[in-house]
């Protein structure tokens, strides 16, 4: 959503409760107990992003969670649409899939702190963690982290691609054309980046 207009001022609520309604906490608990067993966080985020855009914007935070949970529980075969409609189970849940082996490699970064980079101007249809407002922009590596799984492939269960992740610093001038010394750091996977030439 970075840089979108039209949402008005930030509305704060002093002393707001942790959950606005009891069902919100219960949805959080359902997610906490099923994530990591039946699906992982990238799949969960992707399920939220698959909501029709207008519905996404109109839905509350935990309504998005609930929608993603319903989607994933059906897709993973834990429940059926019919069971969801009636609220009654007609068959037991299958065994959860085996957890993937710990295949995390050591960190072997291509870029170093201070390296100048440019982000790919890519607009994939599926899940990605490169915000639109930094695509095709120039920046510099601030920190080197990970490796973390590339969400673009992991969210679709295509493959497990471990990559270094860099906090890349972008000047507000580069991002928004403003005369300012402020900057934004964004965490980006290595394959989102190319060396500046």
């Amino acid at each position, binding site marked *: *959503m*970075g*840089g*979108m*207009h039209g*949402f008005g*001022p*930030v*509305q*704060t*609520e002093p002393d707001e409760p*942790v*959950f*606005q*309604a009891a*069902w919100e*906490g*219960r*949805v*959080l*608990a*359902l997610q*906490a*107990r*099923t994530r990591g067993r039946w699906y992982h966080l990238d799949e969960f*985020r992707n399920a*939220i992003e698959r909501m029709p855009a207008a519905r996404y*914007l*109109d839905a509350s*935070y935990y*309504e998005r969670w*609930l929608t993603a*949970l319903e989607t994933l*529980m059906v897709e993973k075969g*834990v*429940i059926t649409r019919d069971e*969801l409609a009636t*609220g009654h*189970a007609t068959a*037991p*849940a299958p065994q959860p899939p085996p957890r993937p082996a710990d295949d995390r490699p050591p960190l072997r970064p291509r870029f170093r702190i201070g390296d100048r980079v440019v982000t790919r101007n890519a607009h994939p249809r599926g899940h990605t*963690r*490169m*915000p639109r*407002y930094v695509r095709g922009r120039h920046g510099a590596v601030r*920190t080197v*982290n*990970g490796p973390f799984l590339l969400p673009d492939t992991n969210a679709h269960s295509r493959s497990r691609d471990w990559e270094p*992740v860099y*906090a890349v610093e972008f000047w507000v001038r580069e*991002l*928004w054309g403003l005369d300012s010394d*402020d*900057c*934004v*750091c*964004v*965490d*980006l*996977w290595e394959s989102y980046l190319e060396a500046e030439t």
Partner: protein
Amino acid sequence: MTEQRSHQHDRDHDHHPEPPSEVEARALALESLLREKGLISGEEIDRIVSAYEHDIGPMIGAAVVARAWVDPEYRQRLLAEPAAAVAELNPGAPNATNLAVVPDTPEVHNLVVCTLCSCYPWAVLGLPPSWYKSAAYRSRAVSEPREVLKEFGLALPESVRVNVWDSSSDLRYMILPERPAGTEGWSEPELAAIVTRDCMIGVALPQVPAAVRS
């Protein structure tokens, strides 16, 4: 759209007791299915809800900040190995894996947002407030951070640079604010009491009460 929805809202509240809203009914249906299938019990749900309502919150981060203010060696450990440093102070707290702690300086003020969803350092701050998850904050914190900070009552001088952190990966960011003047000799619990959630997100600075200052 808003008007339509508020009419709907009024209608829903005309009669008592209120029937569950559509979304609440869906949540109940999913819960009862997953319970029937043995994936979770009612007690487990209660326990998780209670943990987030009572045990996991900004007091964890505040204790960490207060210790970093009084103990330079702890501060170094916190910046280098955040998860270990948090666990050292809060043995029972959730594991703060992949936490990054960013220190403010006299020249740079840091601010955290997640423009893609609502990534937030739950392990040290608990669940995020509604405004952090709002479209207004997520869209504007990266494009006009100074205006957003003014709405929180924080007007930064031009001499201070703003550094926004958009937490788009597995890392979660927590800000280590600067210790304010006027707190010399304070105990760690006294210091922790002025470190609010908003200070560790970066939309506020720790405030020394006027009575203490004078």
